């Protein structure tokens, strides 16, 4: 907006004195807009660039549809009884038809209804995992990076140990040890998810704490906690949001993986992973049973990853120059 300095001059010179602007409440908005003009134009330019990226927009559409489905599914799902585990052996393993878009499973339940309803629990668990991981990881990473010294050593070596556990294995061991069920699976995945955020925040914190604005805040008498949470962490918000948007899809995938192995969401509660596992026994004849839940999950996760990738391209300071 204010890129051209010449265009600024007439508007400032014709503006009434400060005293007058303050007297009218409506002008507070215009003043706010003016004060934040550069940020606003950044946002506007960002949104424009984002909307020009077709892949990102596809991601947005998929994510919005997914959220809509997760929220409203109980209202319109065609066979609500099938979700809680009713049994209709007379229509067992029917192929896809107009009545049953995705066919029926081995208990005669509508695969479409169960796939749709599984969105809900997957999203809930995904959000919980990320909230726990971000809270724990950001807190530990901030402390480790800010204070350094032995505190850093203890926290970061512990993080290293957690990161050394191969892939899904720790989550698997925890859920196997705690017993099957969605709560334990959520807990297990949360435990394995925080180290990533801890590393991210610690690395940024090490850089940030040397910045002049931190020295300035300290000179003004701000305490350590105030500096960490009010001055430094807001600067890391974009990095955390970008990582979270990329992670959500993976959290959903991992929950399904635990369900597939049999330690995640328990049947008859619908879950993509356990549905794929159950359908596997009826392949190749009843191919729809495993195929559709997997396809649906694939598209959902793809949406989140496309969105996350677009966000990263947009918000990553290293990647802003066109």
């Amino acid at each position: 907006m204010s890129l051209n300095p010449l265009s600024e001059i007439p508007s400032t010179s014709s503006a009434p004195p400060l005293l007058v602007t303050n007297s009218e409440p409506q002008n507070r908005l215009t003043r706010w807009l003016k004060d934040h003009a550069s940020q606003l134009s950044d946002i506007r330019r960002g949104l424009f660039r984002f909307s020009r990226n077709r892949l990102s927009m596809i991601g947005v559409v998929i994510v919005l549809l997914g959220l809509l489905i997760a929220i409203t599914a109980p209202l319109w799902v065609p066979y609500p009884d099938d979700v809680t585990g009713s049994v209709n052996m007379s229509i067992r393993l029917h192929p896809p038809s107009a009545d049953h878009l995705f066919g029926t499973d081995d208990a005669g339940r509508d695969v479409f209804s169960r796939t749709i309803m599984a969105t809900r629990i997957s999203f809930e668990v995904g959000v919980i995992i990320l909230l726990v991981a971000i809270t724990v990881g950001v807190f530990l990473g901030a402390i480790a990076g800010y204070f350094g010294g032995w505190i850093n050593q203890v926290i970061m070596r512990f993080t290293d140990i957690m990161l050394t556990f191969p892939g899904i294995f720790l989550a698997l061991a925890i859920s196997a040890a705690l017993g099957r069920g969605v709560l334990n699976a959520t807990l297990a995945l949360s435990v394995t998810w925080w180290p990533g955020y801890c590393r991210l925040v610690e690395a940024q914190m090490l850089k940030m704490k040397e910045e002049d604005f931190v020295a300035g805040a300290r000179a003004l008498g701000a305490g350590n906690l105030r500096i960490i949470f009010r001055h430094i962490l807001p600067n890391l918000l974009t990095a955390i949001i970008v990582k979270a948007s990329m992670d959500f899809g993976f959290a959903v995938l991992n929950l399904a993986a635990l369900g597939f192995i049999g330690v995640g969401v328990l049947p008859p509660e619908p879950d993509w992973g356990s549905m794929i596992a159950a359908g596997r026994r009826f392949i190749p004849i009843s191919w729809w049973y495993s195929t559709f839940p997997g396809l649906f999950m694939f598209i959902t996760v793809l949406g989140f990853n496309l969105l996350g990738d677009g966000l990263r391209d947009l918000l990553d300071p290293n990647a802003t120059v066109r």
Partner: protein
Amino acid sequence: MKLARFLVKRLLLIPIILLGLSLITFGISHVIPGDPVKLAAGPQARPDQIIKLTQEYGLDRPLPEQYVRYISNLFQGNWGYSISNKRDVFHDLVTYFTATLELTLVSTLIGLVVGIPLAIISARWRDRWPDHAARFVSIGAVSVPVFWIAIILQIVLAQNLHWLPVSGRFDPRANYPTTHTGLLLIDTLLAGNIPAFFTALRYIIMPAFCQSLLVIALITRQLRGDLLDILRKDFVLVARANGIPERRIWTRYLMKNALIATISQLGFLIGFQLGGAVLIEYVLDWPGIGQYALKAALLLDFQPIMGATLFVGFIVVIVNLMTDVVYRLVDPRIGFA
């Protein structure tokens, strides 16, 4: 000299990490509500047999004592026995690990062969259709649930088209080749047994492809970003201004710089894969360490769980260290600080 100090510093950390790993795993596997002894003794076991077995496994001792005994046994080369199959854990780990190693090598190869050109195409034609296509492929590759795509491939390629075997590592009816390295693809070639080599190759294609999706995605993403960063650098501008052909700029100036970060990404990926592709190995019945660990975890068979975690943890730590060293040797700007 700096390298030596760097190595010593990093090597000293390894025991700490392994100690932590062993403590956490021991903790998890000993709060389990299930009873591994009853599992081992079988359903018909009498109470006195169970007591005897509990004593034999040392499970009646206090936990710290059990832990110390476990660790001292480890150092004597005794990694314990699996309760479910009664075999020596260490021997099993080595056998299963070679299968995972083979899978990792092949999938990493596929990942590089596909990922690097994809990244170059993407960066070369940024924001044009080749870029969109390449990004869609790489994002799609990490969005696919691997256990699902493995099942779909099994149906299509194995059961319908009969191009590839359904699952496993080698034809159970054929003579298993004598092993030197444990890597079937290499062993069969060493023995000059070409038909067996192709049999092994047919078995590894499906799991390696599923596994390579992750490699393709991460390599493409990393390399594309680095290439775009470097394309903006002044030395590229200077090179172009001096009339150096575009092809030469890409091969001599860009790739050399851009591949550095990819090396570190690759190291992470190899370490990650050596931890075992639990889901792929489970679905496609690949006898790797992930499958071994999964079976142990589901049966609450604690000595294999402990053994697998420590074994894999050790390998991951070593691979990470090697990556860090190579990374610093290739790019002297980073240094061994």
